[in-house]
């Protein structure tokens, strides 16, 4: 078997991966850096992020306010030392992207413009219209092309981490175009594979978001952290799940029930004003808005559609000029995919699985408990997002912790010897597994799509916006059963050339492991906090659960959940207050609508 060898290896080439690769190259230009991605990097899901990236930029704002919004938004489950580092470095990273050419929106005088966002008390969200992730990703990708130490493995699918004697030695990957299985060794490996929304049936996430990196780490004995915290974004288009960015509400959009009533006023989120009020009503945090939708539906005040109940997002009063200037992608998506023009019509929306707060457990530099293994971006849980991420914190998280992990992995790699001779044997084992379980297997009875659909339905039914013990237990049992049936898979495709059915089967295996970790964490956390709402335990319980869940996979495939205290520095746990109580100190400025 072929082997290639590097110093630092990135799995994933999205926002976090590319930022990490550039950071590593800048630490030491002699390092041999590899970016291994199952898609061409500019296809990575960062491309779909719309609304913006938070970083303190204006004189009326402060790092402490950004930190407080993030910590209260996360229902006090965020590690405050990590949040403090994050808010401090986010503006630097966003500025660095400006220097690399990112087309940020500007004030008339040429300075960076910022917009309001949900759960944020000040305007601090940098944006490139409503295609912020797209512009960030292409800026990073294009910038990365000039770094000669970075070697790309485009369309290579990583199937396993190579681990020996408590240290990561690289990965085994399939080159999709040829079907070649190869060991790629490295002194340090950084997982930057993003989230896992495809575990659920209705998600904003691209088809490639299968929790690959989470499962790779989990199978290597690394704990996953806070996996019960799954974010539903309140405004997805029905059927497609396409995201309508929170910026639509930040610019002044209203959420209306079937009677045209701004129903969020009934859920302790403030009183309706004609203009957007920060940390109030439509600019409340995502968990609270998605939960309000469920309650509104239970009251019979949503609108039935063939794709489930919806409410309406109303942008009509914003006018065509503002919509085209600030929300052009929203208009394009609505017209192209929903046949609705938001300038003239109401947009049907419903909560949609959007983001994973949990992930591979890391420290503040992206290091996991496994020597040489790092993680950054949505795949990781540092944790800054706690029990609920604030909108526009994920893009700067990719940059800040991508850069931190890149530097730390580069420093680590500079001090390590070459991986040992075990690599070849481990890689051969993996190649045999791929052959016997998939490519050369005969006699299986299950289709990938059947098991995948059943898993997704199971997750929606048992681990959706509201959970309770009975449903979670039923979900756990069903997932065990699906793991058994997964062993009985039969592929139609036995080709070596670009075998996407094999890829889907391996992704399904990753997703089943990730789904089980989510349900187990949700079962064990007998409280309600942020995005984890237990109808049988409706209150937050700081005495017992001001702690991160750490879920481990035992060698027999069963799971074990442990807890680790949250790092509290300066913000003791308090009540999450949104609405009129904060309205006075947080009026949006008029200038926001003028540029």
């Amino acid at each position, binding site marked *: 078997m072929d082997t290639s060898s590097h110093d630092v290896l990135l799995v994933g080439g999205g926002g976090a991966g590319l930022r990490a690769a550039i950071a590593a190259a800048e630490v030491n230009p002699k390092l041999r850096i590899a970016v291994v991605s199952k898609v061409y990097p500019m296809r990575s899901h960062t491309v779909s992020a719309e609304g913006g990236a938070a970083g303190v930029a204006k004189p009326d704002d402060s790092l402490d306010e950004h930190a407080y919004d993030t910590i209260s938004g996360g229902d006090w489950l965020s590690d405050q030392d990590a949040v403090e580092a994050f808010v401090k470095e986010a503006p630097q990273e966003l*500025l*660095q992207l400006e220097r690399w*050419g990112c087309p*940020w929106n500007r004030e*008339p005088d040429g*300075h960076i413009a910022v917009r309001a966002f949900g759960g944020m008390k000040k305007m601090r969200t940098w944006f490139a219209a409503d295609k912020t992730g797209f*512009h960030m990703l292409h800026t990073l990708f294009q910038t990365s*092309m000039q770094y000669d130490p970075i070697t790309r493995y485009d369309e290579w699918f990583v199937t396993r981490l190579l681990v020996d004697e408590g240290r990561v030695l690289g990965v085994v990957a399939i080159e999709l175009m040829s079907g070649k299985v190869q060991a790629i060794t490295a002194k340090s490996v950084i997982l930057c594979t993003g989230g896992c929304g495809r575990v659920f049936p209705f998600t904003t996430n*691209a088809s490639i978001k299968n929790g690959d990196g989470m499962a790779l780490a989990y199978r290597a004995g690394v704990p996953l952290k806070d996996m019960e915290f799954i974010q539903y974004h309140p405004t997805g288009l029905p059927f497609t799940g396409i995201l309508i960015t929170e910026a639509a509400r930040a610019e002044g959009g209203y959420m209306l029930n079937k009677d045209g009533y701004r129903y969020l006023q009934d859920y302790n989120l403030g009183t309706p004003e004609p203009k957007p009020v920060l940390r109030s009503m439509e600019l409340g945090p995502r968990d609270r808005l998605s939960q309000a939708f469920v309650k509104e539906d239970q009251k019979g005040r949503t609108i039935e559609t063939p794709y489930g109940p919806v409410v309406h997002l109303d942008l009509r009063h914003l006018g065509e000029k503002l919509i085209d200037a600030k929300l052009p992608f929203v208009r394009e998506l609505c017209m192209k995919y929903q046949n609705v023009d938001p300038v003239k019509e109401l947009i049907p929306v419903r909560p949609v699985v959007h983001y994973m707060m949990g992930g591979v457990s890391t420290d503040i530099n992206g290091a996991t408990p496994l020597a040489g293994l790092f993680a950054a971006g949505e795949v990781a849980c540092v944790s800054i997002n706690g029990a609920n991420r604030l909108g526009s914190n994920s893009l700067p998280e990719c940059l800040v912790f991508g850069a931190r992990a890149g530097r730390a992995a580069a420093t680590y790699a500079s001090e390590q010897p070459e991986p040992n001779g075990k690599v070849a044997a481990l890689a051969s084992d993996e190649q045999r597994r791929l052959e016997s379980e998939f490519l050369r297997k005969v006699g299986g009875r299950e289709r990938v799509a059947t098991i995948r659909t059943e898993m997704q339905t199971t997750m929606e039914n048992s681990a959706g916006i509201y959970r309770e013990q009975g449903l979670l237990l039923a979900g756990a049992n069903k997932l065990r059963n699906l793991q058994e049936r997964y062993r009985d898979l039969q592929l139609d495709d036995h080709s070596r050339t*670009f075998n996407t059915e094999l890829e889907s089967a391996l992704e399904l295996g990753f997703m089943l492991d990730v789904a089980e970790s989510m349900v187990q964490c949700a079962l064990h956390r007998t409280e309600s906090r942020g995005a984890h709402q237990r109808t049988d335990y409706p209150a937050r319980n700081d005495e017992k659960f001001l702690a991160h869940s750490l879920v481990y996979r035992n060698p027999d495939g069963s799971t074990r959940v442990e807890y680790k205290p949250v790092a509290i520095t300066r913000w003791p746990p308090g009540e999450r207050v949104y609405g009129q109580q904060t309205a006075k100190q947080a009026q949006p400025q008029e200038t926001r609508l003028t540029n």
Partner: protein
Amino acid sequence: MAETITLEIARYSPEQDTAPHFQSFEVPVNKEWVVLDALNHIKDKQDGTLTYRWSCRMGICGSCGMMVNGEPKLTCATFLTDYARQGKKIRVEPLRYFPVVRDLVTELTDFLAKLKKAKLWLIHPNQPPLSDGEFLQTPTQVDRYKQYAMCINCTLCYAACPVVGLDPIFVGPAALALAQRYNMDSRDQGSGDRLAVLAHPDGVWGCTFVGECTRVCPKHVDPAGAIQQYKLTAVLEWLKSFVTPRGAGKHDG
């Protein structure tokens, strides 16, 4: 029984086939379905060997471009109902002018090499330290290059460009539009560095101004306009290189 439509899909597997052939599949016509949904339906329910790329399903990742009834399209934004009215048959093929890896998957190595060759990154040597803050850029200055920055690298314009068909070395519409994106950016000082590639016979001068690239672009980028604009720039830069020996920046071509 729900209404159905026939998809005639180009199939090619290098391990079995010497040439591509077509295979027909029947799929239901749901009014929300795009061609990509039909392909997923076939792969999930009928034939797991069908091979194509896709990811975001919202027209921004650029993965799912294919020829649909002879036109380069993003299949995630091409509705079945638009064809159900016109004869109940949709022919799906890989994007034209690219080598085919398998079925609907094209080989993009050469395209990626062209992006690198055109130096699609901000060139501004000796930048002040980050602590000095951002480069100022007014909204009007952003507007000068913004539309070229909307390119999603979907390569539909290459499949539409007859020059790409005749001369595979031609840098091509997307790379040229993106080069102009940086050339027009007030923060960039690299137009001289890009000159050697862009002003080469395989650069802008390869374009015969057919304009198909602009017509098929799903993001309303205007590569044809960028190329015409650059032809003028190239002449001026070329002349300038005689007048001011170092004025046009460093040449490495």
